[in-house]
């Protein structure tokens, strides 16, 4: 197309900038057929190359992808969701419903990016999406032939026969056809992080009202944050110009920006879109740190999510111009009037040479001036109101403007855009007007979304035929166009007042100064939602929802706006209906004979604009998914080649493989045998440790444990079991008495946190009269379990010779401080999980690595062996000690065979509820031992227990295997299980049924204590 080559005498007479000089930028300009020769907020000294669908084009720094495409005369940029109709650029902002492209490639491929918000950079690569094989020739557009069938909700009415076909045939087809862009299929290589910011006043949106609000609040002395989603401040001022305080709007923006950035108490954040409003004044915003460059630099993030805590917020997010529904309103080249002005004025790019304007309000008329100033022609102005607004009469006469009173009833053209506009005037006569661009304005919708995120309902205002904010979230006010104030003067005053008030409410006492001044242009509108004529007229451009879909939904009873939305998918596309919701409900209101406020809006939901999932995860990825915890001997164990596992947050050594061992079972078996026949040690520092102090510490523990602790002698340890208040076992562990008023309590690794919170609850809420102080000592101590017949020998090496380590001097369940050789004092507890003579020894964490080293030295001649959690697990199963799999949150003390521990003499947490009938029923599943009859057979956890020979079914399912191991002592696989009436069934042969793993075999139920049932070894 001819377009605007540099030679043609076009371009604003009063150019804002000088003409380009460098050769490269001249070449660039030449290729940009629709670029004005001068003007615009672009840097012609910085030409940028980019490609769209493989075609290389150029633009300038300051362009968006959309403005660059406009400048290059590109009209067709996308295909619609359902009918694959050709679509162009409709808006110039984040409300864009149509111009979605696939950005970048490979692992950085990014679907559904709005060309209207993507800043241009050198080397930008974009593709159109949802078309095959090409954008111009899209095979899927045959869908349009089936359009008569593809009405709203059609799929609910068909695809039902034959039933099997849904998954096999229909759905795969539908799925393939649906969706828009393609997501990357490789891990996102970019980094993200999140940060916190705090302020008194958060100003959301940096247009006239926002700048005015931020300035007032800033001058008053409050802490202000101003966020703007665009790459620069100014909002509509960058597109519509105007005069403020006697200066050009762009100059005012420049000065205001300078003053704001100079204020130490004001923080200005551009490229930062506010997307959520949460409780307690927490706001969420996305900063696009590096989306305007090809790849983030070293140590740089791509995007950053901000959580902004603000005492007050002022929403100055402006308004969104709304389309009018008429046949062909989706043709490439049909554009919102405000967008046309933005491309012409801000980007010096002409959407068309002959522009027709269709408006039902005065504001749309600004477009006439904008186009004429840029040297374009106004083909005609179509205004259903039938008369030229007073402000524009002079202009209309001067340029003897063709003004038609009526509406657009069709748009002629093809994939390359608009060629003509058919107008039906108010007397029903139709005529066609030659035009290559149609600018449309149906009026403005204040941006009420943010103010409705707490489910507040907006309020209808007849004078502007639009909704304005109703009851906003606590601490939020709205000003300017977002508040329905459409004149520049009013925006400045309203913003200033809101900013000053918010600052004052935060206690700022400074002088907010005076509001800047500008004219109060008239905004008159007579609502026009739809021009009824033959042909597809679109309400939701992205989801292809037409006016007739809305009326069909009404006929079928989907009259509630929420039903309308869900039945037609109106407003559910990636723009969340920013340009379609209000229009859709207006058409529904007319169809049902209700008013628009009666019809109401759907619920506004965050995020205001879509947010990358990677940004919301931030730094918490891969190894940083969650924090991790290391034991004091971690690095020592790592150096010995231990195999670690993440359990909860802890990294724990599972076993220490040795050269030549073929699998973990071999390593673990070696470790177990080393302990049973000699001595070994294991880092058990992960156990929760709590110092319980105070005069009433004993009484306190009597109430939290089912057994007594006030009776425990100083220097002794005791195994304790605690219940939840509902009578189910919560946790277990040994607790020892260090002094009259000091107990040292241990918990399982998994429950350390919850138990501490529970103990504090008991102390602070249930029994505040008790003198008890609690402190977590979990990280203070490196704790090792030393076990095996040679334990005493090893310890005699390590402890000071003055310590009596004999069976009498340090009896079973003894607990006291001992001096170690080399001058360190340790806490020593004679308790056994393994069933061998065993001690747990604690030293301050700083000595953890040294302790592991010294245990190796002390036990060198005894063949001391470090062992991991697997060997620990094997030995506890051999001894029938319960652990996590048995303490599963549904078992009682009696289920675990510990019922006898329950004191009859006192109240304790869980005592009463534990007595309920179903928790004391004789047929409960209780802990037993399980041995496969075939000694070669590997027993597996999760296998179920049935009576011998029983047919599997709910009524024969009597329990399951909870924990298993290969027992080196019994030389076969053994396990613990929870089995109905188990304790009465020792010796019974049962069926082990494991259909998941195709295993079925017989086993014997036995005493859970497989090894040394008399417990002679641990006492010896």
């Amino acid at each position, binding site marked *: 197309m001819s377009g605007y080559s540099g030679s043609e005498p076009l371009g604003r007479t009063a150019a804002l900038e000088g003409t380009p000089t460098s050769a490269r930028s001249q070449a660039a300009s030449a290729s940009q057929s629709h670029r004005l020769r001068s003007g615009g907020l672009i840097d012609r000294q910085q030409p940028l190359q980019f490609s769209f669908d493989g075609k290389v084009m150029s633009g300038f720094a300051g362009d968006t992808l959309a403005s660059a495409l406009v400048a290059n005369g590109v009209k067709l940029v996308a295909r619609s969701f359902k009918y694959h109709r050709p679509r162009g650029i409709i808006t110039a902002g984040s409300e864009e419903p149509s111009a979605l492209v696939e950005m970048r490639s490979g692992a950085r491929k990014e679907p559904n990016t709005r060309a209207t918000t993507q800043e241009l950079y050198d080397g930008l690569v974009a593709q159109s999406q949802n078309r095959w094989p090409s954008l111009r020739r899209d095979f899927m557009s045959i869908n349009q032939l089936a359009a008569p069938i593809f009405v709203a909700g059609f799929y609910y009415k068909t695809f039902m026969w034959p039933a099997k076909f849904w998954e096999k045939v229909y759905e795969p087809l539908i799925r393939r056809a649906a969706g828009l862009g393609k997501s990357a299929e490789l891990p996102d290589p970019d980094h993200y992080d999140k940060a916190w910011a705090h302020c008194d006043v958060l100003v959301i949106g940096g247009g006239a009202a926002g700048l005015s609000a931020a300035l007032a609040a800033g001058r008053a002395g409050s802490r202000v944050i101003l966020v703007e989603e665009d790459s620069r401040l100014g909002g509509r001022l960058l597109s519509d110009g105007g005069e403020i305080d006697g200066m050009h709007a762009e100059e005012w923006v420049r000065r205001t920006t300078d003053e704001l950035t100079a204020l130490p108490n004001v923080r200005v954040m551009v490229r930062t879109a506010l997307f959520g409003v949460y409780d307690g004044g927490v706001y969420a915003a996305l900063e696009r740190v590096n989306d305007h460059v090809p790849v983030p630099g070293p*140590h740089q993030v791509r995007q950053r999510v901000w959580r902004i805590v603000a005492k007050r917020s002022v929403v100055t997010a402006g308004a969104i111009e709304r389309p009018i529904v008429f046949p062909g309103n989706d043709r490439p080249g049909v554009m919102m009037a405000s967008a046309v002005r933005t491309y012409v004025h801000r980007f010096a790019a002409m959407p068309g040479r002959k522009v027709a304007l269709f408006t039902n309000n005065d504001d749309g008329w600004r477009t006439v001036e904008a186009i004429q100033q840029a040297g374009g022609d106004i083909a005609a102005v179509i205004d259903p109101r039938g008369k030229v607004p007073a402000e524009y009469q002079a202009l209309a006469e001067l340029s003897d403007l063709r003004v038609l009173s009526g509406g657009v009833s069709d748009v002629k053209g093809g994939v390359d855009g608009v060629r003509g506009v058919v107008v039906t005037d108010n007397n029903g006569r139709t005529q066609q007007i030659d035009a290559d661009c149609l600018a449309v304005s149906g009026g403005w919708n204040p941006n009420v979304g943010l103010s409705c995120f707490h489910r507040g309902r907006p309020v209808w205002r007849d004078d502007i035929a639009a909704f304005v904010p109703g009851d906003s979230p606590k601490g939020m006010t709205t000003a300017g166009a977002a508040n329905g104030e459409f004149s520049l003067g009013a925006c400045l005053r309203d913003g200033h007042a809101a900013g000053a008030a918010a600052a004052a409410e935060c206690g700022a006492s400074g002088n907010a100064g005076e509001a800047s001044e500008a004219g109060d242009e008239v905004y008159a509108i007579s609502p026009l939602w739809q021009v009824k004529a033959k042909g597809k007229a679109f309400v939701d451009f992205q989801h292809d929802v037409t006016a007739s879909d809305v009326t069909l939904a009404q006929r079928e009873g989907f009259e509630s706006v929420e039903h309308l939305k869900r039945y037609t998918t109106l407003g559910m596309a990636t723009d969340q209906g920013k340009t379609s919701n209000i229009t859709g409900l207006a058409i529904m209101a007319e169809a049902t004979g209700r008013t628009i406020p009666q019809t109401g809006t759907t619920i506004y939901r965050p995020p205001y604009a879509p947010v990358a999932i990677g940004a919301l995860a931030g730094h918490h990825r891969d190894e940083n998914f969650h924090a*991790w*915890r290391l034991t004091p001997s971690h690095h020592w164990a790592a150096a010995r080649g231990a195999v670690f596992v993440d359990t909860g947050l802890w990294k724990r050594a599972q076993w220490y493989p040795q050269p030549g061992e073929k699998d973990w079972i071999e390593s673990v078996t070696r470790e177990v045998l080393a302990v049973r026949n000699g001595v070994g040690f294991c880092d058990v520092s992960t156990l929760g440790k709590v110092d319980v102090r105070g005069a009433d510490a004993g009484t306190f523990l009597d109430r939290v444990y089912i057994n007594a602790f006030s009776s425990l002698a100083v220097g002794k340890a005791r195994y304790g079991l605690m219940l939840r208040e509902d009578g189910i076992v919560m946790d277990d562990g040994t607790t020892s008495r260090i002094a009259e008023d000091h107990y040292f309590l241990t918990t399982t690794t998994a429950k350390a946190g919850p138990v501490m919170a529970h103990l504090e609850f008991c102390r602070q809420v249930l029994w505040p009269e008790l003198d008890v102080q609690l*402190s977590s000592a979990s990280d203070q101590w490196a704790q090792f379990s030393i076990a095996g017949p040679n334990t005493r020998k090893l310890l005699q*090496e390590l402890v000071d010779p003055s310590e009596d380590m004999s069976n009498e001097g340090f009896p079973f369940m003894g607990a006291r401080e001992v001096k170690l*050789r080399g001058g360190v004092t340790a806490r020593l507890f004679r308790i056994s999980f393994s069933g061998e003579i065993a001690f747990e020894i604690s030293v301050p964490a700083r*000595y*953890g690595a*040294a302790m592991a080293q010294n245990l190796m030295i002390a036990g060198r001649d005894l063949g001391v062996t470090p062992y991991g959690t697997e060997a620990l697990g094997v030995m506890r199963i051999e001894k029938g000690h319960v652990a996590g799999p048995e303490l599963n949150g549904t078992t009682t003390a009696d289920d675990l065979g510990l019922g006898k521990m329950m004191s009859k003499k006192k109240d304790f947490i869980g005592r009463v509820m534990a007595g309920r009938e179903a928790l004391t029923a004789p047929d409960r599943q209780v802990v037993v031992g399980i041995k496969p009859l075939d000694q070669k057979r590997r027993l597996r956890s999760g296998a179920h227990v049935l009576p011998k020979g029983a047919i599997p079914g709910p009524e024969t399912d009597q329990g399951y295997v909870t924990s298993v191991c290969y027992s080196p002592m019994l030389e076969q696989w053994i396990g613990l299980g929870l089995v109905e009436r188990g304790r009465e069934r020792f010796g019974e042969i049962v069926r082990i049924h494991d259909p998941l793993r195709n295993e079925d075999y017989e086993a014997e139920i036995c005493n859970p204590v497989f090894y040394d049932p008399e417990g002679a070894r641990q006492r010896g």
Partner: protein
Amino acid sequence: MVDYLWNTQSPLQKALVPGRHGAAGAHVGVTLNEVRDIVLVQVMARRGKAAEAAKAAKKLFGIEAPATPKAVTGKAATLIWSGPDQFTVIAPRADEASQLAAMAQVFAGSASLSDQSDGRCLIRVSGPRGRDAIAKFSSLDLHDLAFPVGAAANTSVDHTAVNLWREANGADGHPVYNMLVFTSFADSLWHTIVDASLEYGVEAASARAA
């Protein structure tokens, strides 16, 4: 008979790599220090004995124990509020046994003490961009007005409890923040702090408390 050596090991043994990391350039944005060899004792007033405990603190350290989230420095120790009727005493480790004994004696009857010298790791964050780095992992408002020198807070980082307080500005005139983190979490949180600081340029080091 061999004699046993009891070398101590820092929880940052592997994590802390001394020197410069992250963004190159003339200026270091964030300075990170591990402060080693401290004595750390949690002091919890006994039931109904808050006043006595405060008196005892005054006697031993010559200052009022903090009753609100603050850090106060007295004779040979800094007292950091760590909860209602409790505070943490932190001092450079000299003669540890007698340091602990002195406290045990003074607070006998009025407070329970819990030695946490090995339970916590002290990390100091300073430099011109220190506050910006902290803003990435802490939800606290560290603005001068909200968190002046001497302010303290018990808070969470990466879902784990941290005591954070601000001491006098550094020689460079920038704020200095101290973070007490649980020993077992130190390796993890150190990485978090470094990651948050890389874009500003980091200088990492380790030193004895003084």
